[in-house]
């Protein structure tokens, strides 16, 4: 998933960037609201983590601006003061959940995953489509109960397609899931990865859920639950 992290404290930002990256997310980590607004306008994020105590434009204003620009991705706020005034204001301005500093990374991750699941309409930590099972917490795929060996990139593409099942997903979206910056973007990589993913899905059961939509991108045709 592509995440936007807005935190002014460099060390904490770096910590979040690394840990979330380790969890298989592509992270845009920025230090202030201006940059966050720019990134949000440029890319498609699946979730934002926003610190309320930002310098300049405050976290609350950032959330309001993101929402007024029509950004519907879930927003998780980080608040230094655990008081309800801040929480209520944050949630009312458009955030979806909060974590009070200092937090254990596991807690942040759990809340973040819950928000992502909720955003794509799944209530369970696993997504099923036909014989295919995706464990969102452990980032593993299973086919007919047997585990499937997927690389990290393959898994990310599969998860993103399944989360947006029965929708056309542009190649650019998939690239954003893999690389944080523009310069590394190469559409051919996506074609190669999708090709490999298809072969792995087909090899055991003949399951063919990924279709190419010419000129637009890909679609996971099976219904996911």
């Amino acid at each position, binding site marked *: 998933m592509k995440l936007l992290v807005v935190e002014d*404290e460099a*060390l*904490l930002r770096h*910590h*979040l960037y690394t*840990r979330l990256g380790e969890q298989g997310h592509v992270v845009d980590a920025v230090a202030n609201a201006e940059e966050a607004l720019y990134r949000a306008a440029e890319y498609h994020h699946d979730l934002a983590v926003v*610190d309320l*105590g930002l310098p300049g434009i405050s976290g609350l204003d950032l959330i309001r601006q993101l929402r007024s620009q029509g950004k519907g991705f879930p927003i998780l706020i*980080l608040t*230094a*003061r*655990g*008081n*309800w*005034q801040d*929480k*209520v204001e944050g*949630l*009312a301005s458009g955030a*979806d*959940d*909060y*974590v*009070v*500093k*200092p*937090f*254990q*990374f596991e*807690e942040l991750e759990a809340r973040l995953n*819950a928000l992502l699941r*909720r955003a794509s309409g799944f*209530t369970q930590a696993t997504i099923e489509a036909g014989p295919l099972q995706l464990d969102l917490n452990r980032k593993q795929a299973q086919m007919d109960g047997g585990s499937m060996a997927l690389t990290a990139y393959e898994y990310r593409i599969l998860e993103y397609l399944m989360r947006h099942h029965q929708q056309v997903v542009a190649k650019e979206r998939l690239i954003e899931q893999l690389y944080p910056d523009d310069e590394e973007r190469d559409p051919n990589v996506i074609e190669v990865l999708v090709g490999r993913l298809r072969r792995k899905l087909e090899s055991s059961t003949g399951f063919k859920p990924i279709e190419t939509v010419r000129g637009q991108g890909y679609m996971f045709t099976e219904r996911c639950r």
Partner: protein
Amino acid sequence: MKQVGRYLPLTSSLRIRLMLGAAVLAVLFMAALVPVLRGAFVIALEGVIEKRLAADAAALVAAARTDSGRLVMPAKLPGEAFDKLDGNLLGYIYDRKGKLLWQSRSSLDEHVTYTPRYDGNREFLRVKGAEQSFFVYDVEINLLGGRSAALSIVTMQPTREYEVMYRRFMEQLYLWLGVALLVLLALLWFGLTWGFRSLRSLSVELDEVENGSREGLSDEHPRELLRLTRSLNRLLEGERKQRERYRHSLDDLAHSLKTPLSVLQGVSEAIAEHPAQREQALVLQSQVGRMSQQVDYQLQRASLRKSGLIRHCVELGPLLDTLCDALDKVYRDKQVRVSRDFQAGLCVPMEQAALLELLGNLLENAYRLCLGQVHVVARQGDGMCELRIEDDGPGVPAAQRERILRRGERLDAQHPGQGIGTAVVKDIIESYDGELSLEDSALGGACFRVRLLE
């Protein structure tokens, strides 16, 4: 705080005190006035009587003649008063040695013992007779009808008439002074009411300031009070600014303390990945946890102090809406039903931020622990406001209730980063002199009961 207003003695009212003071002053003034007025009246009246008696004496002198050294009085005197037997005017003429030479017809039935002294002085005095008192006017003459003579002419008049007049005068005096006192007090009462109306309006404005419907006192007060109202306004403004500054610096402090703690937490997690350093990492984490809890707790305590002057009152309904909206978002998957049981427009006697914190913590506990239903009850009356937050969760075993309600104890230690729960709730309630208790709910879970003094 002591209950003020009901059992105070009467003299605690400024108006009563002023009235009493003024009444005493007026009575003293009148008491001093009475002898003066009476003296003036007596002097005037006696002057008149003296003049009359002098004129009567002059009439006697004019009527008297001497015949070869002997006094001859006409049988009939010019005025009738001396001749009437029951007349009020008595006349006597004595010689130098005090021997009675003549007495008027009117004096025949009176028994007055008065012997003039022939010393050349005119005298006016009061003499007690057998039955009544008399005013006596005594004048000496040396010449009568051009011949030398030495006579004392004495005229008398009973004091009865004078006493009646004097009594009537005194009655009138007391009556009018009494009326004047009443009128004075009535005027004073109205004057004080008028004067105190400004104090009343000040007290009304203070009430409005206390209940938060007014920011400060207006400038529409008498000049003498403006000094006070302006000082109070400065105080109010100062307190407001102070609180605001306080809140901002607490926010800054929280941010600048908690963010480094987050970094430390992250570092400790990174360290914990090396098995050899796991133990140190856990120590670090628990210390970070403790520090953060203390920071949270002390900051909350500091910011949620009860304000000194302003008596806050917050409508429960809208505040509950805000909190439930927020919590519904966080616990979206749970679909919690919140039922309410309180009158529309019910106000809780607390500051907005404090009530938000109190209810936020209690409601979040309920949301987290319930199966699907939360019940909020509020009752007002008998100078108390009672809030109950109930849920249908597992509830709290009776043995643990005491521990949970103890200061600084976390309600749910398994949820780090979830605030400091009942410790803050308890602190807030204590600062408002309220009570927190934990019971079983009819829904099957816990019931937190908050009692506040109005």
